[in-house]
């Protein structure tokens, strides 16, 4: 077990390096000059060359990569071209905001998904299963941004009970545990929770139904266990698969849904990415993607370790 964990943690190093290569390459392979965002089209050629030298864009790509990587590992993600501020500082504001949103969406989506999926799997083939499955499919199919807009129309425009924009009063970008901030959280969280809710419902339903068909469930009944004890066994067996899907979903949510954050103008990483793309702000784009990708890697590490803690068969393969 410990050996497995150590091995799994060491895997993070090559994976992380791969991620940096990809992030660097993707951003540099996209068309357009990285300086075009800051330099006016009629700028003199000399000035452009000077700037290029200043940013290091004149060196060959591998060299640029190594220099960039060297700075990244010391925690320096560079300076945003468009905003003139440290990328790290931008992220320091955006990441916690996205976490708040993701935590809310996770809590709501996973809880509902686990409950619906559990009920549907247990009562497979009956009307309650069909109802839960219908909700799940609707949840997966409805586009985020559309649902967000519809919710805004209903609850903000028509009923005027919930705010539609921002995360707090007066364009607040720092979270606070007060009623006003909470009210701002409701619509984005609901919007964000719908897809994971649907996916988790379907996963849990399939997993529970499959487990209930296994012989050992009969054997548990044959031992005379109480129904709730048998259910505990089912839950423990369903947990690893469910956790894996939840981990992936949490990764997506932490990445900050660009669409949801844009619709609700939530000052998180999604909004940050959105503006970095539009402003062709390469350092900001690179830094944000890298941080999000590393979250994903670490999250997967966590899920793998949790899974092997629950299911003893995994760590020994």
């Amino acid at each position, binding site marked *: 077990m410990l050996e497995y964990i150590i091995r799994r943690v060491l895997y993070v190093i090559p994976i992380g390096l791969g991620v940096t290569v990809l992030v660097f390459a993707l951003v540099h392979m996209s068309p357009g000059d990285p300086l075009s965002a800051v330099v006016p089209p009629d700028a003199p050629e000399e000035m452009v060359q000077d700037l290029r030298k200043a940013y290091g864009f004149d060196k060959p790509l591998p060299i640029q990569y190594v220099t960039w990587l060297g700075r990244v590992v010391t925690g320096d993600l560079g300076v945003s071209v468009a905003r003139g501020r440290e990328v790290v500082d931008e992220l320091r504001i955006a990441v916690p905001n996205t976490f708040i949103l993701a935590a809310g969406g996770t809590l709501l989506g996973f809880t509902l998904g686990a409950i619906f999926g559990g009920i549907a799997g247990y009562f497979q083939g009956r009307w309650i299963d069909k109802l839960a499955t219908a909700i799940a499919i609707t949840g997966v199919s409805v586009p985020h941004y559309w649902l967000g807009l519809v919710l805004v129309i209903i609850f903000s425009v028509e009923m005027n009970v919930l705010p539609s924009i921002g995360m707090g009063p007066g364009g607040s970008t720092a979270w606070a545990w007060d009623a006003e901030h909470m009210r701002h959280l409701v619509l984005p969280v609901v919007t964000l929770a719908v897809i994971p809710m649907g996916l988790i419902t379907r996963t849990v339903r399939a997993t529970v139904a499959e487990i209930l068909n*296994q012989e*050992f469930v009969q054997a*548990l009944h*044959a*031992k005379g266990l*109480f129904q709730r004890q048998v259910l505990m066994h089912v839950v423990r067996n369903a947990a690893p698969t469910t956790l894996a899907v939840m981990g992936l979903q949490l990764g997506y949510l932490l990445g900050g849904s660009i669409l949801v954050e844009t619709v609700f103008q939530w000052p998180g990483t999604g909004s940050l990415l959105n503006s970095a793309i539009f402003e062709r702000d390469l350092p900001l784009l690179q830094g944000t993607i890298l941080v999000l990708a590393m979250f994903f890697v670490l999250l997967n590490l966590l899920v793998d370790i949790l899974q092997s803690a*629950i299911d*003893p*068969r995994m760590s020994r393969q």
Partner: protein
Amino acid sequence: MTAPAVAEPVVRAEDVAVSFVGRDATVNAVNGVSFTLDPGEVLCILGESGSGKSVTLRALMRLLPFRRARLSGRIEIAGLDVMAMSDRALADLRGTEVGMIFQEPMVAFDPVYTVGRQITETIVRHEGVSQEQARRRALDLLDRVRIPSPERRLRAYPHELSGGMRQRAMIALALSCQPSLLLADEPTTALDATVQIQILLLLRELQREFGMAVIFVTHDVGVAVEIADRIAVMYGGRFVETGPVREIMRNPRHPYTQGLLASTVHSASRGQTLEAIPGSPPDMTRLPPGCAFAPRCRFAEPGCETPPAAIQLSPHHMVRCIRAT
């Protein structure tokens, strides 16, 4: 044959029938099985796959998917009316009065719980003892079924044990609350030949030691002879012949029993063609009204189209065949 005649029977089954209702067809898996089992007696239900032997076994504990299965008849275990029991009473009976072992111990154990935990949870559930006491009992049980280094096996997960070891652990689990009846659903079928013998001998020994009654389901005549006091040959969801093992082996009266015995390697010598029963097992969704074996029987005659009555050849030997009279 070793049972004292005075004792109340452990099992009394009367006209037990099970059908599975599906969307397209109804499978009549068991069609009126009656028998009694005395304390300490070993009954072997012998039959091919699909003859309804496993379903009969599970029906005794009402261990059937409640939504699709229709169960009728009378079942008494240790004098208690199983059919009238509440779910709670049924759960109390299972594991205490009745233990069960399965064909595939790999899939009958929960893969994510340790073997020890699965044994202790049963003991704690039924006897309300402390975890520590239950653990000591489990340790003792593993010792009884001769699992080497039992301390370590208690902490092992099912996939970490060998097939034979798993089945031993399964037996320990089934015996954990000293049941008076053990149901064994082809417990040796999935094992290697050498391990089969060991498990059979172990079962036989524990059966004597605990004085349990055993119902042992198998399709293997050799296994049946090894362990049974009494054999019930099952075909098409009915007992077609029952009797003491010696009587059945020496004087099989039902053509199906005769066919089964002739088709085993047991008595055949090298070079001699093995006799097989022609045809295939009956379609349980469309059983003939009369003798289910008639379509494959070389002695079939027009009279076989009415249900054959049970004929008592002797107080212990019953056969359902019109030719037996």
